[in-house]
């Protein structure tokens, strides 16, 4: 059976998702994802389009609340969950000079 998604495509999608895969994992995922994507053929072939009312059906008056000033969470309590902190900042590896 020809795969719906190739190993190269899986590796590309993994890279976009910031995931590393071993060659064996890429092969297994390509096989499994192909089965799932094949199942989607039933909607792929539908002659359907979405009208704007449906596209935005979840954007309504619920999204709005009064613009009041309130206390935010304490900075310390948020930083407490971080893997690496320096003073009041999240510490990360260098960004400049990345050869990606």
């Amino acid at each position, binding site marked *: 059976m020809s795969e719906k998604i190739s190993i190269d495509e899986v590796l590309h*999608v993994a890279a976009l998702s910031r995931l590393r895969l071993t060659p064996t994992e890429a092969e297994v995922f390509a096989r499994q994802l192909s089965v799932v994507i094949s*199942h*989607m053929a039933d*909607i792929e072939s539908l002659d*359907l389009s979405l009208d704007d009312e*449906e596209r935005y059906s979840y954007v309504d008056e*619920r999204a709005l609340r009064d613009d009041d000033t309130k206390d935010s969470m304490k900075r310390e309590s948020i930083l*407490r969950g971080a893997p690496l902190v320096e003073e009041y900042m999240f510490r990360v590896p260098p960004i400049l000079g990345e050869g990606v």
Partner: protein
Amino acid sequence: MEVNPLDLDAYSLSGAVLSKEISVSEVVRSVIAQVELREPSISAFLHFDPEALLEKASVLDEKVLRGETVGRLVGVPVAVKDNMVTSDMPTTAASKILEGWRPPYDATVVELIKDAGGLVVGKTNLDEFAMGSSTENSAYKVTRNPHDLSKVPGGSSGGSAAAVAARMSILALGSDTGGSIRQPASLCGVVGVKPTYGYVSRYGLIAFASSLDQIGPIARTVKDAALLLEVIGERDPKDSTSILGERPKLVEREAFGVESLRIGIVSELVDNCSTEVRDRVFMAARLLEERGAKVDTVSAKAVTLGLSAYYVIAPAEASSNLSRYDGVRFGLRKDGSSLTDMFFSTRTEGFGDEVKRRIMLGTYALSSGYYDQYYGKALATRGLIRRQFNEVYKDFDLLLGPTSPTTAFAIGEKSNDPMAMYMNDICTIPSNLAGHPAVSIPFGLADNGLPIGVQLLGPDMSEPLLFQAAFELERLAKENLEDARA
């Protein structure tokens, strides 16, 4: 008091606490004893701290003694699925990427339970980030079905359903994105409710697929599920999708009956299940008819497209929601030579296979060239399903069908076949796509001794009618079938 508090329903238990017939500390000691007895073989909890529970109990006992106002859940144990944040307990979503994380706040539902005097007894196991139908995808442990330890409890809220079924808690919270409350409730022989989208606040629920996720109750009885939903069903300004206005009363629906209710059996849903499950749905229909309901079969062809639409939309939203796990602000960090390298190392090591599969599937469906082919089509299909349901609801008040196509399957049976696993959600997914509420009610045991659940579905905000019919089905099960409780 002679009886074990865990044999009582939530209503009677809070009443007994209020009238000082039983103390909250006694309740907690019963919970601890039951957890010591059942948890080693079931593995429902990811976090359970007896000492902390006893402390909380004595604080509540003092309040009751002083005559302070306590809420409707006073002294009632509530187990919380570990994808809802708790400031006094770790929250992992059953993922290594959040191991040891202590959230800085409580989810709105947790706050509401505490305000009502409820006792959050612990955090329950789930499929990692709620992605799964068996609770085998947890990074920490596999939960077992209290009815048969070789079987799965369903998922993703398998820990919550198993904890209630095994009487380690009286109530529990689950979350339902494609059936994750109803399917485990069905497989464990308890009641599970997925409310209308926006009925319960999602603030503090770790997001999987935000347009589908909804928190709801798991309980041993319909009345207890109604009580818990009355407590957690509140408008929340912190959730932009929270429905405006008051929620209706539900417990009072106990005595309403089903006289003249128009109930449709969705043929496409019963077509997809085992003979035994199908027979039980028709039996439920016949019994409801005897009680005065008007039952007929109805076709809703679009529901057969639900699975495909769901497995595009949910992974697409998950791929975006889970991009926040990058090793910077919380949870696991695996070092790398650069920032990007750290992202790769952290996510590769922190996520399990099913989560990786769904992130990649979502990224693929959203990538250029495939967006219209998959994501656009899936959204349009979702619209079609909702429209078709709403057409059907012009002729019917509620719909009836199976919750799960089969009874609980063996641990390991489907874990290497994602598509076979996804098929478990075929009867539950349509309600999530439509945003509609649905309830799973235990309806006796199959020949293999495992519970069968039947599902009632309704249109937006039909919770009062759903509960009305659920109460009747519960009475009918009690009168006609073997007790499905473990």
